[in-house]
């Protein structure tokens, strides 16, 4: 009998402390799909951009000029050290973004 009471106390203390700590149980951040438009360079862009952040982070910059997208790609390389290494890769990603999420203006 005493051991049962002890167990109950232990259980309630554990439960109580978990509740008290609240956020301590941790969280799981859900996956949200941000579909990419089909187009030339999509797979290359997906591999290079989505490795570090969601595609939502890209498309929610709004429709932009080719210059804007090129500068963003270069910023990712220079500031954030994105592993995009060749000029050809820079062009592929820039062209994909401009053709699918561009405002029609080069500058």
């Amino acid at each position, binding site marked *: 009998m005493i051991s049962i009471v002890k167990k109950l106390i232990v259980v309630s203390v554990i439960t109580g402390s978990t509740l008290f*700590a*609240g*956020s*301590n*149980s*941790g*969280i*799981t*951040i*859900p*996956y*949200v799909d*941000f*579909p990419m438009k089909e187009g030339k360079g999509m797979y290359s862009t997906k591999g290079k951009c989505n*490795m*570090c*952040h*969601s595609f*939502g*982070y890209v*498309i*929610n*910059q*709004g*429709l*932009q000029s080719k210059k*804007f997208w090129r500068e*963003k790609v270069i910023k990712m390389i220079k*500031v*954030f*050290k*994105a*592993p995009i290494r060749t000029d050809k890769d820079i062009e592929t990603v820039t062209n994909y973004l401009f053709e699918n*999420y561009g*405002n*029609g203006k080069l*500058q």
Partner: protein
Amino acid sequence: MQRRDFFKKTMVIAGSAALGTSHTDATETQHPIDNRKISDIAFPQKRPLITYSDRPPLLETPREVFTSVLTPNDLFFVRWHMPMIPTSINPYKFHININGLVNNEIKISLDELKTEFEQVELTAVLQCGGNNRTAFRPTAGGIQWGVGAMGCAKWKGVRLKDVLHKAGLKNEAAWIGFNGEDKAVYNKTANFVRELNLKELNNDILLAYEMNGENLPYLNGYPLRLIIPGFYSDSWIKMISNITVTKEKQKLHFMDHAYRIPDNECECETPENLADKTKPIEEMNVNSLIGYPTTGTKIKNNTELIVRGVAFDGGSGIKKVEISTDGGAIWSEAKLDDGTQGKYAYRSFSYTFVPKQSGECTILSRATNEKGEMQPFAKEIQWNHGGYKYNGIDEVTVDVVA
């Protein structure tokens, strides 16, 4: 009313919103987008919000939430720079480190923060510098926020000043650098570090562990974040775990390039002629938002309507909020709450009127602060490349039915 009904008029999906908004040659600043769809997916400790990204989480609060001084924690907006956020933190093991130009490099636990320092409560608005960015033409770079990248909460914590005092600043100390627990995916990417000049340190800057009487939600920076009342949120570091004091300002992308505006009278520039000299966005300008009604709400003619919303600025305080229902020809003062939450909090306002004509009716709100600064019309606001600090007169258009 069911929450679903509340939000069912909101039709634009954040993911595709950009497609319909920016392909225009209009050059005037416009009213920002505010009818984006609430996501079907709730993030942890949150109700479903407008969702721009999951890695890092970027969540916006819908307009209809802004009718009272405090924004509920589970509706509070979320903005991270780095996508790797700790999803489990042990509050009994968590420490904040104070190092650099201090007499004693120290580690302080949450328990020590709560027991060994004076506890301070302060209500303050937290607003992203890019809130309302969709107002700008041409489209400014950055997340295309609508009106809800902001919120107001009662924060509880300790003064940053007291914590620094405990470590003891050395004579040559000049800059205080803050870093949180969020990390980039790629290990060569620098952390999101922000700095504050020691001259700007004041009694109101807090390290807060509580938000509206609860632990901070993870996505708002559990277990500890920096609170800089009156300033835009770019330096309100979440999950803050390290403070480094230095003599020289560090070279940091997020200080030297991001969150800066033209350093000229109008804080404006053009895409063809970007300003050479820039300054940090820092103090928030005067603003107001109508929480009820929202655009598209059906209102019965000849029936009393109570317009509700919030107004705030960078800490001088709100002097008045005015409402116009005739496009800005006649303005009438709204009733403000008693202001007991302090100068950094939202002032909630209400304005009662009876529509006398069926059809569309546009309701405008305009706040004036204690410095005499008044919100301009959207079209009077000039462009800056980051799309920061929009504070145009707010408007909603309701449908008055017979």
